[in-house]
């Protein structure tokens, strides 16, 4: 078990180095001037050269990369060109906001997905199966930013039940888990949950259908177990895969959704990325992508570990 964990951690190191290299190079390959947010196009050539030097963009790419990685290893992701604020502070604040949204959205998606999946799989062929399957297909098919806009039109603009944008009545920095704040979370979380809900429902339905065909279920029934008893065994067998899918979905959601967070002005990583892209704020873009990518790597590692704990056969394989 320990050897397996160690192996997985070692595998993660080259992935992290690759991630750092790719996210550094990608933003440099993109066209446009990195100083566009602070240097109007009418600035003189002298001024351009002066600022390029002050921000270190006159150095070669390998030199810039080495300096960036060195600083990142020391926890310094640089300073945002546009806002002059520390990138690490910006990213971790945004990650906190996205985490809040992602966890709630994943929870909604997982509960509804499992509910639809188990019900559809257990009652396979019935109208309930068709209804639950319809919801899950809708979940993965409907563009979620469109759904977000529809929800905003219905629940904010027309009914005026829920706020359309923002992360709290006075910003996200004084967040509390009360209704005054939760009402800001509800629409983006529901919108964000439809994709994990759809994916989890479809996965669980297929799993349940497969498990129900297995001989041990026949054996359990033959032993006279109740529906609930059989259901309990079925859930236990389906859980590792459902959890793995949930972990991956949480990883995706942690990356933030540029579209959903922009539609709802939710100050998470997606909103931050959107802002960094439009302002071509390279340090912010690189720092955000790096942190998100590393989150994803770590999350996959955790899911692997969790799966191994739930099903020791994986470690032996």
């Amino acid at each position, binding site marked *: 078990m320990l050897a397996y964990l160690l192996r997985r951690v070692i595998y993660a190191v080259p992935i992290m180095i690759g991630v750092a290299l790719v996210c550094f190079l990608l933003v440099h390959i993109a*066209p*446009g*001037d990195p*100083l566009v947010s*602070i240097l*109007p*196009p*009418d*600035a*003189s*050539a002298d*001024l351009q050269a*002066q*600022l390029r030097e002050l*921000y270190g963009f006159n150095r070669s790419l390998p030199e810039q990369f080495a300096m960036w990685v060195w600083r990142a290893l020391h926890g310094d992701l640089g*300073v945002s060109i*546009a*806002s*002059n*604020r*520390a990138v690490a502070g*910006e990213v971790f*604040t*945004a990650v906190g906001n996205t985490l809040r949204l992602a966890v709630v959205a994943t929870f909604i998606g997982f509960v509804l997905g499992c509910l639809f999946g188990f019900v559809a799989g*257990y*009652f*396979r062929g*019935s109208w*309930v199966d068709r209804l639950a399957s319809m919801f899950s297909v809708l979940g993965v098919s409907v563009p979620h930013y469109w759904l977000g*806009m529809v929800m*905003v039109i219905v629940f*904010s*603009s027309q009914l*005026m*039940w*829920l*706020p*359309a*944008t*923002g*992360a709290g009545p*006075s910003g996200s*920095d004084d967040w509390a888990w009360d*209704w*005054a704040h939760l*009402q800001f979370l*509800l629409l983006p979380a529901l919108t964000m949950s439809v994709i994990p809900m759809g994916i989890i429902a479809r996965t669980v339905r297929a799993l349940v259908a497969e498990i*129900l*065909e297995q001989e041990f279920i026949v054996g359990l029934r033959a032993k006279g177990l109740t529906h609930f008893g059989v259901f309990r065994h079925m859930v236990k067998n389906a859980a590792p895969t459902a959890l793995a899918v949930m972990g991956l979905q949480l990883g995706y959601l942690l990356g933030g959704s540029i579209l959903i967070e*922009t*539609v*709802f*002005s939710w*100050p998470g990583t997606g909103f*931050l990325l*959107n*802002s960094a892209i*439009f*302002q*071509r704020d390279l340090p912010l873009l690189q720092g955000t992508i790096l942190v998100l990518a590393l989150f994803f790597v770590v999350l996959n590692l955790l899911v692997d570990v969790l799966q191994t704990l739930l099903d020791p056969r994986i470690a032996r394989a």
Partner: protein
Amino acid sequence: MKRAAPALSLKPLAACAALATLVFAAPAALAQDKTLRIAMTAADIPRTLGQPDQGFEGNRFTGIPIYDSLTQWDLSKADAPSVLIPGLAASWAVDAKDKTKWVFKLRPGVKFHDGSAFNADAVVWNVQKVLDKDAPQFDPSQVGVTASRMPTLRTARKIDDLTVELTTSEPDAFLPINLTNLFMASPAQWQKKFDAAAGATPADKAKAAWTAFAADPAGTGPFKVTRFVARERLELAANKTYWDARRTPKIDKVVMLPMPEANARTAALLGGQVDWIEAPAPDAMAQITQRGFKIYSNAQPHVWPWQLSFAEGSPWLDKRVRQAANLCIDRGGMKQLLGGMMAEPKGTVPPGHPWFGKPGFDIKYDVKAAQALMTQAGYSAAKPIKVKVQISASGSGQMQPLPMNEFAQQSLKQCFFDVQFDVIEWNTLFTNWRKGAKDPSANGASAVNISFAAMDPFFAMVRFVSTKAFPPVSNNWGYYGNAEVDKLVADARTSFDDKARDAALAKLHTHIVDDAPFVWIAHDVGPRAMSAKVKNVVQPKSWFIDIATMTMD
């Protein structure tokens, strides 16, 4: 083995439905108070440290309300051009013997929000923050947005407590106009932040001090910052001791929220979450007015043109072709397409503006005249002229570039123009602007579509027509210019009396309109929607608007 479906109970489903109904039916207590809440188009709060970013939206929301400049724009009239008026400087004059020296007399008794006095030292300090690399308060991040807007300013010197001398690199009558972009931050407040800042070097400490100052700034403006949540909200309170009694705020509190998505802004307004949105979604205008909100708009000095190339081989070298294109755009139809949210241009500045002059060429929609000019130039339906325009699909201030350009393309077709587009990403287009029409980045384009602000003479005209502004120096992308234009520019730059300067600029504008180095397609009107409870709103012919004079029911 096929098994029978177990018995199905609807109870859990009914419970879920009931719970969902309960959650949605609960009335959300959306706070309604007297605070003015504004949704900006910016994705982040424009910088609050004195020199805002995010273009003129930054000046509008975190410049003018929090800070003052030596000179400022008159924002009190909706039906007259917004002109330059005294700000923190009560008067100014150029030195009669040395036209590179200006003396500014400062307004007495002005205090910063932190209680320190505004004086000549503060002016010198604020000039140094962007121009003197050796000054402790020098901040590279403020240099770009400031120095480029006052390109000739070099130094500041204190004469006495209320008099300061500014020096330019060459005689420049535009300096007082340029100075609207230099906002006065409190040196004392910055020093407090500097003293408390951590950093290995003075430069590191200065950087940290500016970051701390941005979160707790002090200017002399009608509003002071009370709360700053990065990327989410900026809260301002009225400065009841503001030096200009006419502009002492009537609204106690203003909250600014960044909302880059037009539909989100519109929903926030309709849902009662904000009282004012910038640039509402065009297709929601009718709904907004039906729900009792007010739409404000006015002709802005915001020009949406095609800037033409005069490089060798360009199809625009013939003046008849340039004028024909200007006569062939159905601007009325385009205005309808935009729901009325544009003004039809007669040049870079509108008639009635002090710089408009008396152009002989009347920019209007006259297809027959345009076709006649094209026929004279040797073109016909069978032999159209090919032009390629570099455009973006979106971008700051670009209005709706795709439908507007496609509309222009259709219009021009009837006058024998075969228009092709090279659609590129906005930042790339912006960067290419400095490289010029002869650069490979132009990709064979003979025109470029980048909207621009026409607030001051340099940005409105000089940078596009002076031969000194050829790429890569400035934005004369198309290499337009000649000795006559350069002389008109020099005359304007050296006319130090306001009236004489305006007269010289009117001559320059007249020449530009007659020679048509642009196809003037639209002027933006800066639409914004507000709740009916916001009163005394004056939308001037400007990029800016004065919040200080507004009231709320």
